[in-house]
């Protein structure tokens, strides 16, 4: 099974570990991610003002490229997923906007593509039971906190990947890999996102709240599907170590890194040499 794959700009650069571990895991699970021959940045933000049609053109171009390859496209980055899925819905439902965007692109795209997240492929096509059967290196009860953030889930009526207040899709995967998922109140709160450009104080406060919430509930590692969340949660811990009494940093990894490791990838292929806070001592301690 080949699925058209849109990596997005960050997975092609600083989040290479996310990309490589996902592609390798896919092969181990019996499907291949076929990268679009041509792609551009999705715009990294769905335009919240509906009159901003120009903001739809970059993701629309990606969708058009993907449609030429098949009837669905898979993404890994939560933001790409959000932008592509919401844009696709607009192009499908709004004939007038579709006409304007198609006219601008000189294409004829009808919104018939299905935009899916890699997690949905694992749950709905492969099945978490089959993932579990493919595990070669169980993760021995590592306490992992699944951090969803915003873009994977909201707005609920457009995204619909899981329940918007109590999602479990990442925890369900982690259980299949042999982890012990840890629930924590801040798992769907924002990390501060692009404010890392303008208000690092706000990002540090928000991300530290997320980390403390997870650590207080026993998490030994945080698992995410968004490179910006990963960056903010990693960076904020430098400040937390200095300012929060007794705070000890924990690793922040992509869910595909743990998946890859469990499926038998080496630590380097799964990207464990690229995390700011090293998860390998924890893996050694647990004998993984």
């Amino acid at each position: 099974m080949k699925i058209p794959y849109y990596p997005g700009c960050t997975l092609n650069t600083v989040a290479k570990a996310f990309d490589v571990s996902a592609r390798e895991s896919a092969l181990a699970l019996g499907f291949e991610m076929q990268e679009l021959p041509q792609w551009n940045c999705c715009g990294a933000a769905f335009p919240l003002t509906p009159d901003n049609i120009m903001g739809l053109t970059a993701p629309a171009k990606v969708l058009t490229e993907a449609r030429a390859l098949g009837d669905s496209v898979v993404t890994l980055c939560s933001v790409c997923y959000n932008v592509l899925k919401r844009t696709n819905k607009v192009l499908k439902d709004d004939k007038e906007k579709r006409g304007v965007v198609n006219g601008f692109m000189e294409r004829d795209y009808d919104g018939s593509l299905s935009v899916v997240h890699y997690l949905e492929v694992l749950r709905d096509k492969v099945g978490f039971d089959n993932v579990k059967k493919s595990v070669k290196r169980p993760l021995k009860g590592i306490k992992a906190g699944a951090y969803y953030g915003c873009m994977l889930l909201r707005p609920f009526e457009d995204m619909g990947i899981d329940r918007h207040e109590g999602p479990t899709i990442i925890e369900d995967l982690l259980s299949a890999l042999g982890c012990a998922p840890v629930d924590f109140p801040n798992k769907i709160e924002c990390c501060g996102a692009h404010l890392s450009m303008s208000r690092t104080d706000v990002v540090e406060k928000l991300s530290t709240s997320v980390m403390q919430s997870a650590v207080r509930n026993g998490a030994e590692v945080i698992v995410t599907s968004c490179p910006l969340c990963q960056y903010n949660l990693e960076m904020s811990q430098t400040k937390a170590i200095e300012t929060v009494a007794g705070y000890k940093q924990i690793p922040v990894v992509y869910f595909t890194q743990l998946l890859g490791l469990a499926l038998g990838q080496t630590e380097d292929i799964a990207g464990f040499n690229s995390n700011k806070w090293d998860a390998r001592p924890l893996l050694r301690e647990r004998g993984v």
Partner: protein
Amino acid sequence: MNIKLVNKALKSPEIELVEKVSSETIAKCYQCGNCTGGCPVSYAMDLPPTRMIRALQLGRFDEAASAESMWICVGCLQCYSRCPQGVSAANIFEALRQLSLRSGRDKKEIKDIPIEFLKKAPQQAIVCGFRKFVG
């Protein structure tokens, strides 16, 4: 504080423009405060979501448009997901931002962005930041 409710101010062209750009009906908000309660950045705002919408309901466009709040809203949509009336304060903040940017007033200049951030940050943060702060 005395507030004079004048019909002309309540239905000013600026307020109508905010509604048009955001596609939100400002009168739908009944001020329950769920948006501000759920907003992770309301603590840093001079005019949190509920108060921002109230200002617009009272025809005080300048008060909403001059507040720093719109530049602090991250668009996480927690306000919208918890609003019993289906109002998206994030969309209204975005409309205020867009009106400012479209009139040529950028919030950020590239030279203001720390070089360390540009070197280390994920591309999506940089692209998204430009989308939000530069017209």
